[in-house]
């Protein structure tokens, strides 16, 4: 920690605790994500994966501990200040504004940094969005809403992307396309923290994994160590 020559990780989470009202969800979560990495949080339903992402963004009731991004503390900042530091969140519930059309939803979040995807690149990735540009959020199919939720944050130029189950409800052919997109974002220098139940999908992308249980990190390993850890993973996840 005191070694000044050691590069600080892009995101360093230490002893993070979170509450929703009376419910204590995270019990001291510690992990880090280095610049340019794809890191996947694994764990069963209710383990605290989504809450970890929400806690990084500052959208939980109460949090304690430390979340440092580019060396600066985020705990204590409002969620919009955190977003402007260059972190974007794609929630599992998608969060599409029902009364806005596709284009309005897409342009609503401000660009916080240069280097995000262009609208054309987003349409190449998700042709459905271009075809349905004037459709209201609620008129989109579930999968199209998911595409819009992902596309929307790729435009902002945020360098750290928090993706909560990005493949949910999507056709296999689109999932493969999202896999290619994540790889290309990584090549362009984006950093990605992924929550994903589709383990086969995660395994093709992640550099490192953390396993969560009962609001804590219980295991971590690199992608190269995946095979050696499959049995343990089976116990944790039932995969």
């Amino acid at each position, binding site marked *: 920690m005191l070694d000044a020559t050691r590069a600080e990780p892009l995101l360093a989470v230490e002893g993070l605790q979170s509450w*929703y009202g009376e*419910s204590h969800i995270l019990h001291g979560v510690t992990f880090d994500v280095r610049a340019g990495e794809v890191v996947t949080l694994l764990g*069963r*339903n*209710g383990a605290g994966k*989504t809450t970890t992402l929400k806690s990084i963004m500052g959208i939980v009731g109460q949090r304690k501990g430390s979340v440092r991004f580019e060396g600066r503390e985020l705990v204590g900042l409002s969620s919009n200040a955190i977003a402007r530091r260059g972190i974007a969140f794609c929630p*599992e*519930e998608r969060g599409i504004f029902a009364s806005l059309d596709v284009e309005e939803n897409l342009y609503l979040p401000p660009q916080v940094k240069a280097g995000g995807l262009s609208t054309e690149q987003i349409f190449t990735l998700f042709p*459905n969005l271009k*075809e*349905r540009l004037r*459709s209201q959020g609620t*008129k*989109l*199919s*579930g*999968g*199209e809403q*998911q*595409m819009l939720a992902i596309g929307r944050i790729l435009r902002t130029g945020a360098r750290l992307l928090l993706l909560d*189950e990005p493949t*949910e*409800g*999507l*056709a*296999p*052919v*689109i*999932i*493969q*396309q999202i896999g290619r997109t994540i790889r290309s974002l990584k090549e362009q220098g984006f950093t990605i923290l992924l929550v994903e*139940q589709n*383990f086969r999908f995660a395994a093709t992308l992640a550099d490192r994994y953390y396993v969560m249980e009962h609001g804590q990190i219980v295991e971590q390993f690199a992608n190269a160590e995946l095979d050696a850890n499959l049995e343990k993973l089976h116990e944790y*996840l*039932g*995969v």
Partner: protein
Amino acid sequence: MSGDIILETEDLTKEFAGFVAVNGVSLRVARGTIHALIGPNGAGKTTCFNLLTKFLQPTRGRIAFKGRDITSLPPTEIARLGLVRSFQISAVFPHLTCRENVRIALQRARGGSFDFWRSKRVLDTLNDRALALLADVGLAEFADLTAVELPYGRKRALELATTIAVDPEMLLLDEPTAGMGHEDIDRIAALIKSVAANRTVLMVEHNLSVVSNLCHRITVLTRGRVLAEGDYQTVSNNAEVREAYMGVGHA
């Protein structure tokens, strides 16, 4: 299984302003089968469900359930006839407990809406049944938690339990395993299989291993039309289906 057709549509079509979501779909679901509706996002799968349960009125076409034309019936009547759906995004009562959510559905299945006035013993029998259903979907330990406190995947499991509690002859399930972990997917798949032993199921599902393990017949929709139909082997070997939906790596 028999050749008896429980649900049939003819030229089912839904046009929105400038957009044809469902375009001349003729679907035949055999009684006692698990039938999958798959296809790319925006192909019209959920719109089909909305038409079948009359959450949307078709622009044209005809729907028959158990030989009866239901095209002009309201959603409540269709549910009472025994055709009941689940939703892609959960629809449960957020501030009731899991047990209460399932119990309400069970009260409906009992046929009486005045169970409020029944003796406590009647409700207690419903409690046992509610707990059994919660156990079936892996929620036994969360029976007294309010639905709003459940993580997303468990909310989906709760909704499935309430759908099954109504005990319909035919279930329409919209992405029953979406948002669930591996451990839950196997449990839900087994549950659907057991529920389907004496019922008919029509389901939208993107998890192809679930589809291939469970479904007797598969209809592939794309751009509102039927692209292919058959068993898993047939549709997964169809070049157009592979291009439009499955992509590479799914044999």
